């Protein structure tokens, strides 16, 4: 008796990483799991990524956008996806061989599993961290006991029905903390987010942009928005105060204006955020593990 494999849509957003996109697509096409629909949303690159995909990957669905819309581009890909499950990837990440098949197995076994978070490993230490050398391979989900976690967008599976209900990533975030925002809404729907160490993806994480203010700016601003959009009043105000305190503290400690700029920008967007405000259950907000100081640890 032959069972039809459920279709998996792989959604990758690319921006000026032609070589990495090429490698990622080659690796995806070499996956054992063949019921794949690969969607590349081209976010206005000027390095010829779209031409390369069109020329070399005829089976890949390419959606070309005229400008860089940040994480909003994922939503464009999600909307056109036909799969029962979606695999979210960065343009510089790819799943390990066999990971997609395992991911489908996790979803099929557990109807409440909303997001299957991958173990996203550093590509540049591929050899040292490949699953083959692990002495203790595990297949069960990681227990986080009484707290909840978000996921890493460089490798995560999600049910398409969840995307249809939630609308996917928050368009206004542009970059960073979009996973946490979606995670809160997924958990609020009653679905689970679990980490599986045997679902591995590799990510070309580079520290070269660490002196840039882009990451701390978006991380800080979006964390305000995560709280303002999703947290019940009491927790929202407590976290807002803590975050303002940290903005001031790290502005002085690191002698930078980027955090105050983030705060100003967050307040500037407050009108829009309030329209989208839909607080999650208090227990979820309380137990969601968010490092409130994380935006301040990536600059300098």
């Amino acid at each position, binding site marked *: 008796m032959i069972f039809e494999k459920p279709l998996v849509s792989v959604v990758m957003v690319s921006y000026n990483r032609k070589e990495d996109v090429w490698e990622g697509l080659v690796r995806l096409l070499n996956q054992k799991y063949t019921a794949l629909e690969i969607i590349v949303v081209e976010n206005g690159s000027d390095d010829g990524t779209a031409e390369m995909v069109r020329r070399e990957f005829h089976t890949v669905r390419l959606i070309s956008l005229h400008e860089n819309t940040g994480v909003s581009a994922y939503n464009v890909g999600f909307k056109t996806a036909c799969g029962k499950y979606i695999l979210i990837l960065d343009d510089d990440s790819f799943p390990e061989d066999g990971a997609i098949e395992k991911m489908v197995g996790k979803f099929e076994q557990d109807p409440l599993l909303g997001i299957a978070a991958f*173990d*996203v*490993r*550093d590509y*540049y*230490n591929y050899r*040292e*961290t490949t*699953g083959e*050398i*692990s*002495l*203790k391979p*595990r297949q069960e989900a*990681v*227990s*986080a*006991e*009484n*707290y909840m*976690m978000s996921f890493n967008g460089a490798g995560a599976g999600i049910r398409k029905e969840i995307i249809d209900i939630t609308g996917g990533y928050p368009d206004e975030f542009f970059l960073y903390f979009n996973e946490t925002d979606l995670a809160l809404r997924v958990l609020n729907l009653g679905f689970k987010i679990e*980490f599986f*160490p045997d679902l591995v993806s590799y*990510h070309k*994480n580079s*520290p070269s942009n*660490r*002196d840039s203010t882009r990451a701390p700016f978006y991380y800080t601003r979006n964390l305000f928005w995560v709280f*303002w959009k999703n947290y019940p*009043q009491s927790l929202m*105000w407590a976290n*807002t*105060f803590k975050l*303002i*305190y*940290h903005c*001031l*503290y*790290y502005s*002085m*400690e*690191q002698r930078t204006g980027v955090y105050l700029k983030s*705060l100003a920008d967050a*307040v500037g967007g*407050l*009108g829009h955020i*309030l*329209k989208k*405000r839909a*607080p999650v259950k208090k227990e979820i907000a309380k137990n969601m*593990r968010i*490092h409130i*100081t*994380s935006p*301040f*640890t*990536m*600059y*300098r």
Partner: protein
Amino acid sequence: MKAENSRRVLIIRSSGFQHIDKVIVMVRQKFKSAEISILTHVHGKELAAKYGDVNVLVYPYKGNFSVMRPFKTVNYDAVVVPTGNVTGSGFLNVFMFALTIKAKERYICNIKTDFKSLTTWSVFRTAIKGGVISTASMFLAIPAAIVVFIIWHILGIRVIKKDKGKRKYG
């Protein structure tokens, strides 16, 4: 005298696993043949198992590494604190926590995987500076939060009016 291969090194899992992947490689190079352990929160336990010969110790608290939440361990030859940035800014709590672990030497391993010595004096200086900045920040945060609170309510009332009371904002 202790043999080289009996050296014990503890890595505190204070940055993302993609950085830890790199730190492990550097620690193996710096402390050849040493017995390496990693201290991680419970959610990192299985993820740390990928390092194979590295002992995984679980920090039994939900909160950040803190001197208020000490962890009893054996004595180590070296403790390594990975930082997700260059200077270690924002990792004072982990530095202070690292001092509570008995070790002969302590190091920061930053985002570029450069090792820098972590001493009681350097942590003390950072803590003093942090205390002064913290006090100033607290005084400034109160009026700043009040301003945000007022803007929130003005805009919130507008949103309610626009939505004719259909949408709750609280």
